[in-house]
Each structure stands twice: as structure tokens, then as C-alpha cells.
């Protein structure tokens, strides 16, 4: 297809050559300025050649850009397909375990158990049902975030962070971590954001919850907010075990659980949700980590006046 279009560039040259054949019968043109005799056929051929070269030069970068674009698109499609496959595999895995436990529990119940064992089997099946319900609830949140209408009201980020930290401090294990909140006062406090309080709270609480879940007793979790001229920046940093470099790009994928997350309760949807919420507010998320040193998750959100103009 592409090469067929390139032949278009040759049309002026072919037209020039055809014209030169027609002109062979005509005598040389008189040239009043420079005394060079040139026949009309040659003139036509040269003009055609020049035009062809120009057209060719014009087409090359255009074709090149098209080719690069197609390559990029194919890359994105391949990555999306790969991500989708990984998501399905993870979903399969997440469903398999509770279902296996439930089948075993039901088989035990069908065999007839003593009252105590029966109570245990029922409780275990119910626990798995609750776990599956939680999973579908989280998946639904993620799907709904795409279409849900957002409230756009001024949100005091400092106040929101204070509440999120207070809630995190009530969680089990919080007492053994050093949880601090740093809010600037000078030269000015963090500006408001226009957005959905509930969703922003959910996003930030998820980050805090992760920081607490993946750190060890004695570790430090720091929550910081600042403003860099274009964005409000919220950071949740910890001195936890960190995330291996190869896992970092994948932490945003739905249901992804890294090596270090095995055995820690959770669905693997927290960061995906936080990112979706940040993006719906016109913001971005980033994560940096060093194994053995810790992790910092950054959420950048446009301040109220900018968000308002969007």
C-alpha cells in the first residue's frame, strides 16, 4: 500500500518524459539571456524530474511518521492484550482459591458432620463468600469509576489528609509504626482541589493502608503535601522493605500482587483504584521504590482554580 502511494511521486517524471517525446519535433527554443540552446523536450523532462524529486522528499518523512505511528499502535495493542491476559489469569487465581475452599466445605457438610464441625464448615464457607463479595465490590468500583459522575466541590486537602491519618492510626498495627503528617504553612498552605471528597479520601486512604500493611513494626510512614506551582502533590512514603525494580511498573495493574504481597491480606486493587481516581481528577500517580529502603507514592492533582478551567 505504502509503496503504491510512493509511485505517485514518479508521475511528474513520467509526464515530463512523455512531454519530451511530444516536443522532439519542435525546434530548440531561443534563449534571449544565456546563449544555451535547449530543446523543449529536455526542459519538460528536467521539470518533471525536479518535481518528482520534490514530491519524493515530501513523501519520505510523511511515510516515516505513518510507519512509526502504526508501530506504536501495534505496540500499545500488544501491551493491552498482554495486560488483559494477565488480568484474566489473576482473576482466575483470585476466584479459584475461595471456590476450592467452598467446594471442600460443602463436601464436608454433605458428608454429615458433628455440630461443632458443621458450624466450622459453615463459617468457613461464609467467610469465602464474603471474600468473593468484597472482590466483586472492588471490581465494580473500578469499573464504575470510568462512568461515575464526579462531584466537583472544593476539597481541603490538608483537612482530608488529617482525617485519613486519624483513621489509619485507628487500624491494628498502627501503634507500632511511626505515622507522621507534614503540611506546609509557609509561604502558604496547600490550595484546595476541586473534586469528589469521598473518592479522594478513598484514594489517599488506600495509599496509607498499603504503607501500613507493607511495613514492619518500627518502620516510619510519612504523609506529605505540597504545591509546586502547577500541582498539589501528595506523597505517602515509608521505610518498608521496598518493591523490586521489575515489579514497579506492574503495581498499577488490577489484581496485581507482588512477591512481597503474598500473605498480606488485600485484593490487589488499591493502587489501581487510587490511580483511576487521580486520573478522573486530571491528576497522575507515580511510585518510586528501593529494595531495603522503602517506597514513595506520589499523587499529583491540579489545584482548584486549574481544575475549574478544565
Amino acid at each position: 500500500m505504502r509503496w503504491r502511494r510512493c509511485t505517485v511521486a514518479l508521475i511528474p517524471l513520467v509526464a515530463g518524459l512523455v512531454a519530451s517525446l511530444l516536443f522532439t519535433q519542435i525546434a530548440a527554443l531561443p534563449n534571449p539571456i544565456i546563449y544555451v540552446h535547449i530543446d523543449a523536450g529536455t526542459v519538460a523532462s528536467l521539470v518533471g524530474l525536479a518535481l518528482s524529486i520534490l514530491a519524493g522528499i515530501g513523501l519520505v518523512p510523511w511515510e516515516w511518521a505513518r510507519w512509526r505511528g502504526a508501530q506504536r499502535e501495534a505496540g500499545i495493542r500488544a501491551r493491552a492484550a498482554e495486560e488483559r491476559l494477565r488480568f484474566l489469569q489473576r482473576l482466575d487465581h483470585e476466584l479459584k482459591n475461595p471456590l476450592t475452599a467452598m467446594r471442600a466445605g460443602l463436601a464436608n457438610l454433605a458428608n454429615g458432620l458433628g455440630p461443632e464441625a458443621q458450624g466450622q464448615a459453615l463459617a468457613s464457607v461464609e467467610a469465602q463468600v464474603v471474600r468473593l463479595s468484597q472482590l466483586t465490590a472492588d471490581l465494580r468500583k473500578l469499573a464504575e469509576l470510568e462512568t461515575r459522575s464526579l462531584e466537583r466541590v472544593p476539597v481541603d486537602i490538608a483537612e482530608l489528609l488529617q482525617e485519613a491519618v486519624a483513621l489509619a492510626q485507628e487500624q491494628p498495627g498502627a501503634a507500632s509504626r511511626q505515622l507522621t503528617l507534614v503540611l506546609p504553612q509557609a509561604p502558604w498552605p496547600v490550595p484546595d482541589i476541586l473534586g469528589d471528597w469521598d473518592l479522594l479520601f478513598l484514594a489517599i486512604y488506600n495509599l496509607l493502608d498499603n504503607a501500613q500493611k507493607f511495613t514492619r513494626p518500627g518502620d516510619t510512614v510519612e504523609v506529605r503535601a505540597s504545591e509546586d506551582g502547577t500541582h498539589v502533590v501528595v506523597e505517602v512514603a515509608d521505610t518498608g522493605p521496598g518493591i523490586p525494580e521489575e515489579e514497579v511498573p506492574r503495581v498499577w495493574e488490577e489484581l496485581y500482587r507482588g512477591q512481597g504481597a503474598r500473605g498480606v491480606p488485600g485484593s490487589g486493587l488499591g493502587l489501581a483504584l487510587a490511580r483511576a481516581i487521580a486520573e478522573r481528577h486530571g491528576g497522575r500517580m507515580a511510585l518510586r521504590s528501593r529494595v531495603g529502603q522503602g517506597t514513595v507514592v506520589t499523587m499529583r492533582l491540579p489545584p482548584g482554580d486549574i481544575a475549574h478551567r478544565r
Partner: protein
Amino acid sequence: MTSTKILLVDDEQAITANLSPFLERAGFVVTVAADGKEAVRQVGDSGPDLIIMDILMPRLDGREALRRLRQAGDWTPVILLTQVGESTERAMALEEGADDYLNKPFDPHELVARIRAVLRRSRPGQPSLAAARRLACGDLMLDRQSRRVYRGHAELRLTPKAIALLEYLMTHADELLTRERLLDTVWGWDYPTGTRTVDTRIAELRRVLEDDPAQPRYIETVPGLGYRFVGDVEGVP
């Protein structure tokens, strides 16, 4: 006393097969329909006291079936079972005059509690508050279609979520509403904050409505449980 007749409408046989005996054990007489068309026909034939209806169904979905019933002047109380979980779906359910709605998957005990609450509220043959276009309590007026709230002639400034919360409180006046239930029905999500998320909006409502929690005209706190709308609510066409 005759038993309460319930029409259970869901195309998923696994659900009707398990819910029917559960509801029967709770003391109801249950009939089952597999889609909206069959439901509309059965309502005409047997006149149930309450309908529990799924939304996504073949032939005629729950929303359309509800609309047809209401257009025909049938005010049998309806509890919709939402599935897609879209917040718009919940708003629609209210707009079309569903008396309550429950997100799948739900605890069957919760369904029974809702059935009893809806039956307590309902006045046979009369449209319920859930079908009213506007809700009034003294000089407080909530226009459900335009999503505006007035106090006398002055419009009150409330966030959309606070309006949705007030709407649910008013349509369920005099009923104890736990924070969990408010989260599930008004927000449609569970939040880690749970109680705080609801409390923040209740505080907003009280501030704007100038309602004193110690001597509430509108919203009463039920300690340790949740909230209750204590004003007398009337539906205004």
C-alpha cells in the same frame, strides 16, 4: 392474619431457587416470575403485597416492568435488586418509584429486613413517597427531578451527594437507617471510612438545614446505630 404474598422476579434460577425457601421460612408466601413480562401478568392475576425484582432480565427488564406497573396505577411496593451497580441505576430506581433497592450480592437477612420496613411504610393502593416528584416536610421541599432543595422560597446550597442522602432519608422517614445501609444505597460503595463518610454528609445537611442534633426537627442520631428522619414527610405531585 393472612400471610404476606411476595412476587419474586429474577431470571437467574439459582437465585429464585435459593431465595424462595428462605423467604418462605421467614413467613411469606412466595411466587416466582422469570422476567418482567411474566411479572406484570402475575401482578394482574394474583395481586401480591410486595414485588422483589431484578433489573437485568430478558424480554422485559425490571425497570421497564416497574414503569408499566406505575403507569397502570399499580402501587404495589417494589424492591429492586440492582446488579450493574451503576450509581445512575440507583437514581433511576428511585425516580421510577421503586420503594427500595438492594445491591447484589446481598445478605438474605437484609432483604427480609427491607421487606418488613417497606411493608410497614406502605399504604395499600396508595402511591408511596418513593413515587412522589417532590417531598415536603414543613417548609422544607426537595424537588427530586431538578435535584434542588428549598426552604420556603430560598434555595439551599447542598452538594449532590447530600441531596441524594436527604432524598433517601425523606423517602424512608421514621425508619432507622444504619450507616452501612446508607453507604450501600446512597453511595453504592463501601468506603474504608464507613461511618465517617456518612457522618460528614449528615453534618453538612444539618448545617445547611439549621437542624440542631440535640433537638432535631429533621435528622435524629440513633446512638451507635445510625440515623432517622423524624419530620413528617408528604409527597407532592
